[in-house]
């Protein structure tokens, strides 16, 4: 804990002297603030994208997991036997978590919207339905089809939502890409701050020399630069985050129909995620300037 505090000392030093000993540089200040704002804005978007893609992948994935059914149409006498046979095949199929024949009541409930209540299911040649829950990897559907054909000729494998599988993979990939983008933006921010801090340190070699002459430690000199860049980046990132937040807020949300596009808004506590962006940016700036200062001060020694 002490070392942790020690690390942040340059930020907390109460005297404002350290900031004044380095001459102000108006233009690069504005550039640094602007760049940090832009980076934070992009980060908020990448966050929204990532989280939305993740939600999508999860939802679709869950639907997929309980998506397949088997329909058995057989003469009344063979119905029970073929159902039994199909269930047996399913229990032996890798990738199937569970399989369950729907009860008559459940089948009736499914048909009710179409035929109204009071339909005597057991007296009609209604196919028997088997609900399949599969693992994330899923089963080999061709193999299952072949075996069903052999064991229960009346069974038809119905995979009506399987087409979504590549979409789920794409959503997962998009989620990953979002996080990679955030990582890249973070690294770019670090690189930008390093470049700016390096230039500023080099431009102030004379100032550093004078400070050393009067007994300034490297820590003191570094803190003047570190605080300056950390505060600039924090300011910029805060502005960028607020703008990004507002932009996401203005996205239409909620409707099921639009799917991905309308799902870009944050949901629930995810609205808190953007709050992480400015401190993260400041931390990156802090570390980058600290490293740059240490390096340049070492070279100037």
């Amino acid at each position, binding site marked *: 804990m002490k070392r942790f505090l020690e690390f942040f000392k340059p930020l907390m030093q109460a*005297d404002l002297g350290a900031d004044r000993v380095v001459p102000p540089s108006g233009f690069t200040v504005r550039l640094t603030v602007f760049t940090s704002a832009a980076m934070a804005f992009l980060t908020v978007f990448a966050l929204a994208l990532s989280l939305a893609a993740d939600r999508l992948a999860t939802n679709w994935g869950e639907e997929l997991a309980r998506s397949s059914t088997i329909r058995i149409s057989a003469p009344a006498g063979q119905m029970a036997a073929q159902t039994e046979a199909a269930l047996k095949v399913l229990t032996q199929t890798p990738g199937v978590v569970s399989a369950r024949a729907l009860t008559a009541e459940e089948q009736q409930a499914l048909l009710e919207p179409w035929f109204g209540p009071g339909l005597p299911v057991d007296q009609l040649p209604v196919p028997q339905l088997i609900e399949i829950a599969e693992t994330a990897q899923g089963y080999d559907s061709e193999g299952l089809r072949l075996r069903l054909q052999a064991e229960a000729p009346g069974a038809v494998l119905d995979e009506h939502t399987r087409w979504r599988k590549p979409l789920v993979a794409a959503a997962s990939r998009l989620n990953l890409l979002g996080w990679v983008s955030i990582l890249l933006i973070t690294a770019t921010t670090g690189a930008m701050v390093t470049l700016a801090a390096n230039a500023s340190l080099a431009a102030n070699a004379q*100032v550093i020399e004078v*400070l050393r002459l009067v007994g300034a430690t490297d820590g003191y000199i570094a803190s003047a630069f570190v605080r300056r860049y950390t505060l600039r980046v924090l300011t910029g990132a805060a502005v960028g985050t607020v703008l990004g937040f507002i932009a996401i807020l203005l996205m239409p949300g909620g409707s099921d129909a639009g799917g991905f596009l309308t799902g870009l808004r944050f949901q629930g506590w995810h609205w808190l995620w953007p709050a992480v962006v400015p401190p993260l940016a400041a931390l990156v700036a802090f570390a980058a300037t600290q490293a740059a200062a240490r390096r340049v001060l070492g070279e100037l020694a």
Partner: protein
Amino acid sequence: MIELNNVAYSYGGDALLNDISFSLAPGSFHFLTGPSGSGKTTFLKLCYGALLPTDGDVRIFDHSARDMGRDAVAYARRRIGVVHQDCKFLDHLPVNENIALPLTVSGQATPDQFANLQELMSWVGLVGRGNALPPELSGGERQRAALARALIMSPDVILADEPTGNVDWEMSQRLLRLLVELNKMGKTVMIATHDLALIRAAKAQVSARVLRISNHTLQSAGVDL
């Protein structure tokens, strides 16, 4: 306080200083003379750790300069007031803040010491110039400001490189008196200068040793200048 043992120094080519042994005793008053380019400034830089000897050992407050980290050198500098020959300042800060810079940097500025600032400014004749920026000062004013900055921390050792190079005779006498007073208060003083008249004037006030750099070594200049 500061000790040089068989020190040699070269900027890359031939040795500029060779086999120099010297000890700066507490409370002593030294002059350092020698022709231009003989290495006076270099000698002082060795004394305050701005340069490391190419051979031999420099000890600053009983620590070998070679073994001192940059922080240790920084702390030592707070006890050594240095007047640079070319008086470097932070040009964006007014003169009084420049003079107070050692206090600011050490993080231990007390109101007392800032009271010192006013007194020092009047001693070096800079009253009313405190809010000027360093580039607005004359050469002599810069030197006086540099001297005031060297003294603000009330250092144990004062190393002054040509502190009177650009001021008139009267002002140089005034600055000399200031340094002599400080020496009487126990400060160790070393002044590098070409100005033999200044040395003569000092000898009337204080028992000063005069050292001379010639032929790359340090010699005692004797009584008759």
